[in-house]
């Protein structure tokens, strides 16, 4: 393989002031082994079409301006080698904005939704500051390490615009806002943790609507793992008594109930426990279909019937639950 490769790059084009619909244009160029996606975009602009528009600033992965998608893969253009993606996608690559729906001009998107969600979690230390302190505010290394990786977030929006929940539910805060919520809630100098936990516990907007697809983890160019922070927010809601009893929280804690009894999950009980008897009417139609197919049994939901298989050495499991549980039911 030589040091350069002749390829055709497709790019998404749209000008919201003049175009009714977006379109794609192809650009032929010879790409060198060290060129980045940002270089490719520069060359489209400088060598082919000066009207091609995209955000760029720092060129070393800290300003977050140049986030785009290449063949659907969230990409920070100034960090991503072009040849690597050509290899991955069989020499056919299409550069698109992080969110096609929000394109204003080519790669430039309206990120107002991102900032609105980000601001909603108070992404700063909330505290009473003494204007003339006698000492600096001290933090232990251990305390600092708890939010160090979250602090590396550059607000590029790669995770936010890769999240499938946000495509369906516009109220949802999204992974970047949750990372910020975690980062400041775990900071010992901060006083607004409880408020943030309450905000992120609300159904529809909060962490309970996360589908756990890990798209955000895959998308993050700073390797922050937003889903890990979402799990921590869930745990903190229980630890700090913020979690209300609702269908989602009962669904999470209902697992302990089943595991203690059977080792396995009791599939009928988890639905019943999460929904409550009144909520079960929603599932009657599905349940009938499942009974007909032999997937569940007509008597599974009766409290005095136990059709659930049991783990061998169930006593061990019971004991481990008893001695390891850190949160209360």
């Amino acid at each position, binding site marked *: 393989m030589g040091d350069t490769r002749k390829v055709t790059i497709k790019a998404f084009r749209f000008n919201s002031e003049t175009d009714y619909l977006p379109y794609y244009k192809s650009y032929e160029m010879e790409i060198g082994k060290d060129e980045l996606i940002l270089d490719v975009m520069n060359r489209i602009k400088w060598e082919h079409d000066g009207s091609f528009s995209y955000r760029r600033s720092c060129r070393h992965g800290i300003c977050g301006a140049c986030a785009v998608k290449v063949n*659907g893969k969230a990409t920070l253009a100034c960090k991503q080698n072009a040849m690597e993606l050509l290899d*991955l996608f069989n020499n056919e690559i299409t550069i698109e904005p992080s969110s096609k729906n929000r394109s204003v001009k080519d790669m430039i998107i309206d990120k107002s939704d991102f900032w609105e969600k980000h601001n909603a979690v108070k992404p700063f230390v909330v505290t009473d500051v003494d204007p003339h302190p006698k000492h600096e505010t001290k933090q232990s290394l251990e305390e600092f390490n708890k939010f160090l990786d979250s602090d590396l977030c550059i607000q590029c929006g790669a995770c936010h615009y890769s999240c*499938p*929940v946000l495509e*369906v*539910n516009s109220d949802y805060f999204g992974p970047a806002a949750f990372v910020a919520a975690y980062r400041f809630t775990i900071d010992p100098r901060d006083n607004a943790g409880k408020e943030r936990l309450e905000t992120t516990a609300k*159904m*529809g907007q909060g962490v*309970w*609507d*996360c*589908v*756990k*697809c*890990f798209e955000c*983890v*895959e998308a993050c160019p700073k390797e922050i793992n937003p*889903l890990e922070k979402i*799990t*921590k927010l*869930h*745990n903190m809601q*229980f630890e700090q008594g913020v979690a209300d009893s609702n*269908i989602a*929280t009962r*669904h*999470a*804690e209902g*697992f*302990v109930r089943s*595991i203690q009894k059977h*080792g*396995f*999950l009791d*599939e009928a009980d988890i*639905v019943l426990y*999460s929904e409550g008897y009144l909520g079960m009417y929603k599932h009657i*139609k*599905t349940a009938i*279909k*499942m009974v*007909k*197919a*032999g*997937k*569940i049994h007509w008597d599974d939901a009766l409290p005095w019937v136990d059709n*659930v*298989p049991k*783990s*061998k*050495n169930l006593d*061990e*499991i019971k*004991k*481990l*639950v008893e001695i*390891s*549980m*850190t*949160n209360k039911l």
Partner: protein
Amino acid sequence: MSQLHYALYTGCTAKQSTPELLSSTLAVAKKLGIKITILEEASCCGASHLQDFDEFLAHVLNARNICYAEKLGLTMITICNTCQLNSAMTKHALDTNPELKAKVNEKLKEVGLEYKGTSEIKHFLYVLTEDYGLDAIKNRVTTPLSKFNIAPFYGCHNIRPSELHHKSNGNENAYVPKSLDNLIDALEGNPIDYEYKNKCCGFHVELQANHTSEVLTGNAMVDAIDNNADILVTPCPLCHLKMDTYQDDIGKVIGRDIELPVLHMPQMVALALGCTPKEIGLNFHVQKAEHILNY
């Protein structure tokens, strides 16, 4: 080749609402001469939900499951993406964090167990495509699936986060997964290429955010249908439950008629290896897959 031997972690779903997954897995193993020892001691993996309530407890329970595979000196295999994820997540956490490992082992000691980190964890899909090998499977096909356009649906937890699947679980690129496509190819079926094959089915918010869940599954199923799929196949029983059981409801939300038979990955392999539709438990499906039954 010496006989392949694995410790099977069945998970909860294969023991309850998708019994056809367990029976077809065992049927495939028998046909291919793969030895399976079922981990009867294992408990639920927490399914990503217990983790939301109590992450530490989930690590302890998953570590206990892995202990039993370690005792047998075998690789632990899974037949559910979410079991794979949560088991591998605990293994990764314990293998990279000695402090956490010590804390977990302190609890396990109370029941006479110790997590060492000696067993790999791998989905049955990759046992077939990598350990047994696609060429070897191809040689065993007696009923080629050449009549069918098959849409591979990978399911999130076998491909993301890629960090967890790099070492022993397929090492797929999450944006360009290939194993299922290659497997369909080896069984002489026609793999369908479609945008949503590596996307989320929304199963995990089925209860609390039903609309989100229905739309996500609907997007994927409609995409497969529009690309002429006759069958959709998935290695994950949770994707299967969502996609097989809720087609009516999803259709209402999406505004389209959805009728697409959904197979578990081992069911598809079993069919090609000569098992009958009855043997692979098609009767347990809500969407009856008539044209496969008449195959």
